[in-house]
């Protein structure tokens, strides 16, 4: 069995005495892994730790066989094998798109000027910003800035790609394009993405982890997550009594999640979002959390 690309071994993180990530043991293999959870659940903290952007309070983190918590040389070696897109990237506004990526490429130790510039050009094309090379960041739209930030994470051939809400600000076409790009990276390494878009998870991820209040609530395949909501989603003319959530669909019928099925209602196909809401609410009667 090949070693895992990234490992969190008994990792915790506290800020000012408050533990935001409780003891976590996780391993990441090749594929796309979706990280779901409400705001403040600890998703970004977990991603920062994996990306070596900050140290854990305790525990051990391994990336590409390098124990990043052991010391600077291991951490530097691990950083050569990963890429990271933080949730917010305040790209200096006076820089051009090309200059920003060139700077990040230098930080990623692309020493050969020609190869580095070709790589910058390649990732600009990947995110559809090839015609914005010479534009200053201040002249880019919010979505274009997000794509520019994303482009730096696509440089090279990383083993671990850590993306914090990569599809925020992207239109449907760009999101579809990004899914294609991430799939190709997942053939070679682990792509870990935190998102609020459950459709991205169902379309892209091999595995999904739900994090809530700094603890893992679910870890498994998308199919097994959706399976948790089997028999919990109903469509009918009335709202289920005690439904966790309900809304009127485009056909005028009411879709209810959980609760006691209303008279005349019929079961419906659950989605990732249904299962996520059920896990979050601990409303899975008879199902382990």
């Amino acid at each position, binding site marked *: 069995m090949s070693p895992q690309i990234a490992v969190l071994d008994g990792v915790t993180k506290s800020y000012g005495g408050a533990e935001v990530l409780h003891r976590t043991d996780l391993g990441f293999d090749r594929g796309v892994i979706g990280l779901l959870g409400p705001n403040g659940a600890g998703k970004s903290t977990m991603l*920062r730790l994996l*990306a*070596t*952007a*900050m*140290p854990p309070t305790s525990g051990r983190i391994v990336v590409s066989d390098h124990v990043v918590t052991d*010391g*600077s040389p291991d*951490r*530097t*070696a691990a*950083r*050569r094998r*990963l*890429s*990271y*897109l*933080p949730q917010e*990237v*305040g*790209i*200096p506004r*006076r*820089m*051009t798109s*090309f*200059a*920003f990526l*060139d*700077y*990040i490429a*230098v*930080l*990623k*130790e692309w*020493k050969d*000027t020609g190869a580095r*510039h*070709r790589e*910058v*050009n390649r990732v600009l094309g990947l995110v559809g910003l*090839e015609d914005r*090379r*010479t534009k200053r960041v201040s002249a880019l739209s919010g979505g274009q800035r997000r794509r520019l*930030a994303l482009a*730096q994470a696509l440089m090279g051939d990383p083993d671990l790609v*850590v993306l914090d809400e990569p599809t925020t600000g992207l239109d449907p076409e760009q999101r579809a394009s990004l899914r294609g790009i991430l799939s190709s990276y997942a053939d070679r390494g682990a792509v870990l993405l935190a998102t609020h878009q459950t459709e991205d998870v169902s379309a892209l991820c091999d595995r999904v982890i739900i994090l809530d209040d700094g603890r893992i609530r679910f870890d498994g395949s998308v199919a097994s997550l959706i399976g948790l909501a089997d028999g919990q989603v109903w469509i009918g003319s009335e709202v289920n009594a005690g439904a966790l959530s309900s809304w009127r669909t485009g056909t005028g019928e009411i879709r209810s999640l959980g609760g006691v099925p209303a008279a005349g209602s019929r079961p419906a196909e659950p989605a990732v979002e249904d299962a996520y809401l059920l896990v979050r609410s601990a409303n899975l009667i008879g199902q382990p959390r």
Partner: protein
Amino acid sequence: MTWHLGPELLDRYSDGDLDLARQSAVETHLLACADCRQLTSAKAPQDLLTDIWQGVQIATARPRMPWPLRLLRKLGLAETDAVILSASSSLYRPWLLSLVGAFVIGVGGTMMPATEQRSLYLLFAPLLPAITVAAAYDATDPIRELAAATPFSKLRIALLRTATVVAIALPVVLLAGLALPFVGADAFAWLLPSLTLTLLALTLLTWWTASVTAWVVAVLWLTVVGILRSAQQLSAVDTPFAQLAFAVAALLALAALAIRLTTHHAPGGYA
């Protein structure tokens, strides 16, 4: 149009197999004949065209480095280091800050009573290099988290920026001090306090952003000068005892920086 490129001539042209005279004739014709241009384009090796086009795109997109960096490149600065310095605003901003500082000292000093001139100089001169070091981090602070996850040595970035901005700020302030009649021996007395404040700024940058660091260092130094002034001890700054005290403070700041570096914290964030 009296003639067009036949298949044989087209092949020989695209293979680069024509003598100069024929090649020129073909190219003159191509300028005027869209049909033959289209035929020639189809023959052109696509990989080569892609490479050339990419080269053109890169050449036009690559930002031109400021002249001081071009000069440093000629003196042996590595291209990657030049990119780092170029991104950090570490040339123009320190230069501007130093000039403004020297201007304030010069003009402000002549407008103030003789007793206050020394206070003014001692307030600004040691502070300028420290502030310019902090300023060199301001531009890249917003991507601090992103930069932290990259393998490039954060210590190297710190040294590059510090060396560059101090090399710019130091001569400006020193020359201003020597040129101003009211400064006298203080032109050199500020060097050790300045070293202390610069090392302190670098240490604080391992915790805080550039703007916070600049404010803390400025307020701290303002307080020191204020206390000395109220005790009417400003002249004590250039005494051997005071200079020794500043040297000890500089060593302490250096030790604090070393401790932060060995615990994986560099200016600009987690190392």
